[in-house]
Structures are given as C-alpha cells and as structure tokens.
C-alpha cells in the first residue's frame, strides 16, 4: 500500500468501524494507533505504516472529514516533534512499544533536556554527568530552558558519560523518568514576567541503562536527529496570507490611530511592511521548495528575518503607541506560552521577541551555519578539538 488513495481507503474503513461520535477520545485514539493510522511514517506495529511522511496529510484530511477527535498536537509538541523521530530512529523494539503510543495519545508528555547554563550555543560542551552504577546510570547536573518539564513524564536527556575524551565523543542519550525524587523542576521566569520554561536539577537521579537511546558515547549523533527535527518544524506547512504575522498588529494600530501618525513613523512602517511582506513571500517560496521535494537552506534565513522583524516591528509599535506604549498589562509570574500571549500588547511583543534571536539556535549560530554550510566559508581556528572535555578551559 503506497498510494494516497489506499491510505484514504484505510482511514475510511477505520472510521466506519470506530464512529468518533460514539467512541470516547482515548479509546478512539488508542484504536487508531493500534490500526497503524497514528502517523503514516511511524513504523508498522508502532502506530504507523512505514510510509513517507508526505502521505500523512491525506490521512489527516480523511480523519477531519470523518469527525475524528482533535489531537491537539501542541499539547505534546516535544514528544511528537522531537522524541518520536528520535525513538523511531534509535529506539529498540521494546523502547518503541513502551513510549510511542502514550506519547502519541499525549497520555505522557515529553520534554528535552539538552541546554545547560554553561552549554548554550556550545551544546557539546555540556557537563551534566551520568555515571554507570550496575544496570543504572546516576545523573547529576542542571538543565535549563526546558519547556514543559513541569508537565512531562519523560525527558530526552543528553549527558556526559566520559569526561576523558573530546567533548563530542563523551556524550550519551537517555530517556529519563521525570517523576522521581532526584529530579527537581523549577519555573524559570523571563523578562516578560512569564515562566514558559524551567530549570531542571538532577541530584543522584537514576535512569536504567535500558532507557539509553543509541550507543554509549554516541549521544551527539542521536541528539542531531532530535535537533534536525526541531529545525524542520520551523517551516510552515501552508501558505500564509498577507498581514498575518507581527506586521498585522502594527498595520492595525496605524489604521485606527490617525492622531499618532508622523512622517517618520510612516516611513518606518512602510519599510517594515514591505520587509514583512517579502519575508512572507520567502516563506511561501520555502514551502513550495519543500513541497516540491527540493528543500533549500533558506529556512535559516527565514528564522533570522523572523526574529529581526518581530523585534523591529514591536519596537515600532511602542514608538507609535507613545504614552500607551509605556503601559504593560501584567508582570505577575504565570505559566504561559508565547503563541497564546502574543496578543497581550506591544510591550509584551517587544520583550518576548528578544528571545526570537536566542531560542532554537541564536542568530549568531545561524549565521555561522549559513556561512560555513551554505556559503562554504572556512571554519575559524578551533582550540577544542582533540582535547579531553575535562581539560577544556571554561
């Protein structure tokens, strides 16, 4: 079965047997997973049919037509976006059986434990230690910028298992149970007042060796799969209409507040509007490249431009709003997410957008990547290759 039509038939047959209106969501989704209809590209026997990822949209369409229960992929964004592809690529059959189904049904939420206070752009320099103790590993260290850690059952943990070899060679990759005494999750408050993220502290936390993904010392390679899937998710999968991004707020404000207009603000807005519209077209072109099966490196450019425009447009908004731009809605700490809070006002957008050039790869790292991988410019002289991790200056 390789065609779109075959897959659609299979979905319709499933729906005929499991009427969504008459079946509770949990039961429906469980059956859907077992029928191999969770995701076309998941392995056979683990929620999928081992097909190309691109076929999934056909299945989604049929499920939507048939009134299937909404899966809300945002609830387990790291599980679906990063954990699943990594487990599929590196997991044993037992591991796939244990984790994929409750991940997909969102019964178990996942988080990613990579970044550390001392290892941001230089992720491979991380210092959280995992020491073998019988069939288990004992974990000590600190992770940071961890979304969903406070809701997660499982964490994707990259830890140092051998400090005596060069930094990339001494890492291993684990799935750690977040519900154990040695794991402490603290909210990490941001300059917006919110705490979208967490710090995670490990004090003699334990992870069975059976929860290791990939070989000992091969953690860097496993992590690349996780990160590559993080980057894939940045591109949009459908066309975005004009004035649907940050520029929408600015344009609306300009149109409704004629008393605040000046020539200077007008020229700046015209320029930002044009840049935002061109960025939208570039995003659409990227989407068309992906759809045509010829993905280009332009995604990195899109992220750079996205960050800069969000920052400049929200800066303009404050300047335009003048007195009103000096008000903020609420500084009290609460959980929240950038996506839902984006309508909170210019002040929030201005502050939150500062992170757009840091999170998911800083703009500096992206420029390095473009310069070296796209333009083929030579690397800088390195001083950290061939040196044992423990001997590196820090």
């Amino acid at each position, binding site marked *: 079965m390789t065609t779109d039509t075959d897959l659609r038939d299979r979905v319709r047959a499933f729906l005929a047997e499991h009427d969504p209106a008459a079946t509770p969501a949990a039961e429906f989704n469980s059956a859907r997973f077992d029928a191999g209809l969770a995701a076309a590209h998941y392995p056979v026997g683990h929620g999928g049919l081992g097909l190309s990822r691109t076929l999934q949209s056909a299945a989604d369409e049929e499920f939507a037509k048939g009134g299937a229960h909404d899966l809300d992929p945002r609830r387990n964004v790291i599980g679906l976006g990063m954990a699943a592809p990594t487990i599929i690529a590196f997991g044993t059959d037992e591991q796939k059986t244990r984790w994929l189904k409750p991940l997909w049904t969102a019964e178990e939420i996942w988080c990613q434990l990579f970044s550390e206070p001392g290892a941001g752009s230089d992720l491979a320099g991380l210092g959280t230690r995992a020491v073998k103790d019988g069939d288990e590993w004992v974990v000590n260290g600190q992770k940071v*910028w961890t979304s969903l850690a406070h809701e997660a059952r499982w964490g994707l943990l990259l830890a140092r298992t051998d400090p005596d070899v060069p930094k990339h060679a001494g890492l291993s990759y684990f799935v750690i149970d977040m519900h154990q005494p040695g794991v402490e999750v603290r909210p990490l408050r941001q300059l917006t007042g919110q705490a979208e993220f967490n710090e995670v502290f490990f004090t003699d936390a334990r992870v069975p060796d059976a929860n290791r993904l990939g070989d000992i010392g091969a953690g860097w390679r496993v992590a690349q799969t996780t990160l590559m899937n993080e980057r894939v998710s940045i591109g949009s999968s459908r066309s975005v209409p004009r004035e649907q991004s940050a520029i929408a707020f600015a344009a609306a404000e300009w149109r409704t507040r004629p008393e605040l207009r000046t020539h200077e603000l007008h020229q700046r807005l015209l320029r930002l509007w044009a840049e935002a519209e061109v960025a939208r077209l570039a995003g659409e072109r990227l989407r068309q490249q992906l759809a045509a099966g010829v993905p280009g490196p332009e995604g990195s450019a899109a992220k750079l431009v996205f960050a800069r425009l969000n920052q400049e447009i929200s*800066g303009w908004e404050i300047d335009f709003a*003048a007195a*009103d731009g000096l008000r*903020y809605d609420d500084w009290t700490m609460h959980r929240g997410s950038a996506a839902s809070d984006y309508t909170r006002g210019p002040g929030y957008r201005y502050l939150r957008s500062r992170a757009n050039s840091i999170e998911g790869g800083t703009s500096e790292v992206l420029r390095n990547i473009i310069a070296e991988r796209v333009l083929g410019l030579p690397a800088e002289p390195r001083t950290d290759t061939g040196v044992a991790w423990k001997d590196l*200056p820090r």
Partner: protein
Amino acid sequence: MAHTVDLLYSDTERTLAAALADLLSSRAQASDVVARTEKPDTYDLDLWHTVAAEIGLAGLLIPEPLGGAGASYRELAAAAEQFGAAVAPIPYLGSAAVATAVLLSAAKSSAQRTESAPVSPAAGLLRRMADGELTAALAVPPATLPGAAFPASVRVAGLADGGMTKLRGTIPAVADALPADVLLVPADGVPNALYLVEATAPGVHRTPVTSLDMTRQLCDVTLDGAPARQVAVGPAAEAAVDAGLMAGATVLAAEDLGLAQRCLDMTVAYLKERHQFARPIGSFQALKHRLADLWTMITQARAASRYAAACLADGDPDTPVAVALAKSACGEAAVAAAQECVQMHGGIGFTWEHPAHLYLKRAKASSVLFGT
C-alpha cells in the same frame, strides 16, 4: 556653534559622578532594583532622600539665594549618567530636572514682572525643594515634546477657598508623579496658566500604571475639582512648561548615555568571562565588531549629550537643536546597547533575575519620554 563649547567633563562633574557611582553601587544593587519593581513602593524614597538632601542633588540647579548649589545642567547631566547606569528608582528626573526647570523659569518671569511680592510662589517652592524637603513633578503626558503646544487636558472648574482655583481633567501616564508631594499642572484657558496642586489634596487621584519601566513607574493623574494655586500665567506659563521639557529631554539624554555605557560595560565583562567552544565568547570577531560599533555609537552620543547640557547651561540659542540631537543620539545608543546586552548575554539575559531587562525596559520607555 560659532563659539567653542566645552564638551569635556570638569573636575567637579567627575567628582560628583564618582560619589554617586559609589553610593549607587551599594544602595542600588542590581538584585535590589529588580526586586523593588514588584514591591508596593516601586520608588526608593530612602535612596532619593540621600541623593536629594545629603548629596544635594535636589538643589543642584537652584540658585544659592534660594538655598541651592547654583550649579548647572552640566553637573546635573553628569549625575544623570550615574542614575542611568544604575537604573536607579528615584524621581530625580521629574523633580530635580523637569519641575525645578519649570519653577526656575516661572520664578524668573515673576521676578521680572512684579517687584512687589518679595517671594513668588515658584521661588517659595524652589526654596523648599532645594534641601530635598519637597518633591515635585510636572503633570504632562509622557511623550510631550519640548516645543509642543501647551497641554489642554486640564481646565479651570471654578474657584476654591483661600484664593485658590479648582482644576478638572486627566493627565495620563505621568512620570515621577507617584512619589511627588506637589504637582505642577498646566491648565488650558484664556490665558493658559500653570498651577500648583498638593498631591494629597482632596480631588487629586493618582492611579499607579503597570508600566513597561517599573523603575520609573507612571501614574494616571485625575483632578476632580482639586484646589490649585497659580504659579505662572500666559507666556510665562508656556515658557515654564517648555523649559521643563527641554531640561527633561537633556537630562534624560545624559541618563540614556550612562545606561548605554553600563550596558556595554556589563556585556564586555560577561563576554570576557563566559566560555563557549573553549574560548571566551568575547574573542569571537562578530561579537567584537558589534561591540566596537556600539562603543563608537556611544562616543558620538557622549559628544551630543555634553553639547546639549552645555548649551542649556549657557542659554545658547542653539539649545533646541542641541537637545533634539542629544535626545535622539543618546536614546538610540541606549536602546541599541540594551538590546545587544540582552542578546549577547544569551539565555541568562532573558531571565527576570538578571538585571539586563531593567536596562532594556528603561531604555525603550525613555525613547518615548519627551517625544521621539
């Protein structure tokens, strides 16, 4: 600039700046300033008292006969750089710069007008402000440009007891009015006039605003028949308000300059210490070049700030140009420096604990104050 204006720092200015830097390093530590933004009293009135009364900042611009130090905008600007560097939560800008400039202008006009009354209301107020006893604020919207039309949102609503007038109206988002004892209120009319209102008088309502910059928290001021005493009238009132705005923009520019310099210093220090890829990240050329550009921008802003303070001090006819240049050059340097400070600190600069955000919020909010 036909004549030559001194753009350097005098020994007096350097000494004053050093004393303030010393004081603020213990009394306005970054962690305390961060914590205070969530306290009920966002202004640090103890620190303000020390600065105003003990260091004598409140009387810096006030002539010696009225109990002040008779210094100039040059010294006040040098001090402002330190307040910016510490994002100090004190109402020095609204009181020691803006309101003082308003009253100095009003006192000068009334001195010229009538020789009869020995002390004009403005001079009387200045005498009480000189030793830090009294804190004042000019009640105008925050984005009012120097040279803008006289504010018109407050009007005379009748007569009150004791030869006073009743005022009615609202002024949104007033800077440094929360900790003020008296408000200077421009009121629309024929002729326009400037009034003095006791902040605690009946009919005066100050509603704190949740502000982008909580180190200079704004408040909405509503006057509901509040009793007011006239301080200046007609052209004298207009000149007084404009003098206040001009002084405010100049001193704020100096504050921006100090803020920018501190952001650069913090960033340089962090980049020397923070290692990634087994190197201090300050050895990465792209960051070095951006900081070199930022330093360059600050050298330019410093010249503009010094020139504006000197012009204002000398009553130079080039003052309006000088003030506009300083406000824009220093304001842009501050925003650029604060943004680079957050960016180059990476994740840690995006946290609530780290003080970088205070600088970002202050810089961005200041770029709106006194108009852009």
